């Protein structure tokens, strides 16, 4: 397990997402209201890139005609077939047990900490005064 510096935190403002490569694999990093989440970018259904999916909320219902909408912006819908994934857990709505995205630990670290290493940051110059998104994989 290595720690990968994948982006400047300022590149992924709240509501945004960024597709990065970690160990040669696509990982999509989401920022939900300042919290970062990193998930495998590949939909387990047919392999579409989830980084291209629309964000939505969770709609639940106790009976026909009732729409309880919560957690706006915390669900990503696959751009190909519309499957919904909970960004906080990686689990699909329709088959949460079997159809889920791999999750990665993600943190935001000040550049000053990163100078110490060990980190994998081939594509970055780390500046002491910035914050960075770090994915463990």
């Amino acid at each position: 397990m290595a720690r990968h510096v994948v982006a400047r935190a300022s590149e992924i403002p709240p509501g945004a997402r960024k597709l990065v490569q970690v160990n040669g694999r696509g990982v999509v990093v989401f920022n939900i209201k300042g919290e970062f989440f990193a998930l495998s970018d590949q939909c387990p259904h047919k392999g579409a890139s989830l980084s291209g999916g629309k964000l939505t909320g969770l709609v639940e219902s106790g009976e026909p005609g009732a729409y309880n909408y919560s957690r706006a912006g915390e669900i990503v819908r696959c751009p190909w077939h519309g499957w919904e994934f909970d960004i906080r857990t990686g689990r699909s709505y329709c088959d949460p047990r079997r159809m889920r995205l791999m999750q990665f630990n993600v943190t935001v670290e000040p550049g000053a900490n990163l100078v110490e290493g060990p980190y994998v940051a081939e594509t970055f110059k780390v500046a002491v005064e910035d914050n960075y998104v770090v994915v463990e994989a």
Partner: protein
Amino acid sequence: MSGDWVGAIDCDMHPRVPNIAALRAHMSEYWSDTVELRGIEGFDTIAYPANAPLTVRPDWREGKPRPDEHAAGYAKAMLDPHKFGLAICNCLYAVQIIRDEYMAAAFATAVNAWVKTEWLDKDARLRASIVVPAQNPELAVEEIERWAPDSRFVQILFLVGGEQPLGQSRFWPIYRAAEKHGLTIGIHAGSNYLHAVTGSGWPSYYLEDYAAQSLAFHTQLGSLISEGVFVKFPKLKAVLIESGVTWIAPYLWRLTKFWRGVRNEVPWIDRSPLEFVRDHIRLTIQPFDAPAAGVEISRLMDLMQSDEMLLFASDFPHWQFDGDAMLPAGIDASLRKKILIDNPLAAYPRLGGRHAT
């Protein structure tokens, strides 16, 4: 082989109203006179043309009255020789095609009274479906309330082909009444023919018409699930009668696949359509569509992840089988008992009830 049927519950047999006089006897004076005055000879549809081979098996056409026209005829043909325990009468007299809702209601009442008098009261092994004027759900509920006190009525009968998909809220008063009384919803092949029987217009031949019935069952199953009928009425069970059975697995693959993509359109469907089907839908086993070489019925059970969905039915007097080959091949003794007895008892809460007199 006859011992193999002991106690079986025949979940689909069809009493035939022999003539209009049989119904007039159960009508109010106004409606009885109206039938005479207007020269109404009766209501029948092209669903089962009188001389089509399927409509009545050759040996059941013999006799006057015909075996399907009186309780003793059915008893002699089926109940007695096979020692069935119970049988559910689904009278297909076509009240559904009558445009005048009040006349439809009057005919439905007459049909139900005829079934009670000439069938239920004549043989203690018989049960029946309530025929309703679904054209007007309020009148349908009145009809249900009329017969619900008699626990020998165990089901509410719809035709699969109607004006609107059956899941729509217009029909919910009927389901509310059904749930209240422990009545099962029965959806039988046939149509009121206000729409073409296919989604692409009228076919030319009877062959196509009968084969297309399963397409209407697709529509009704999709509607009942999508509209949330089983969310709203969680105790409700629906039986798909004379549907052909095996179409259901591929349709559920399709329904479930697209539900995964657009489920936020129907958020009350919070689990796979297959789960709703397992909990709420049952199918009668005649006819059973399978390849000529036979099918491993266990494979269908695997696909449905349930061995509780199939209900025994003869579909008497329709010609679905010869002799007593009433079940498809490949059913072992324990599954046979479930299909013949246990599953019907579970599908129809009222079968366990006592007679109301």
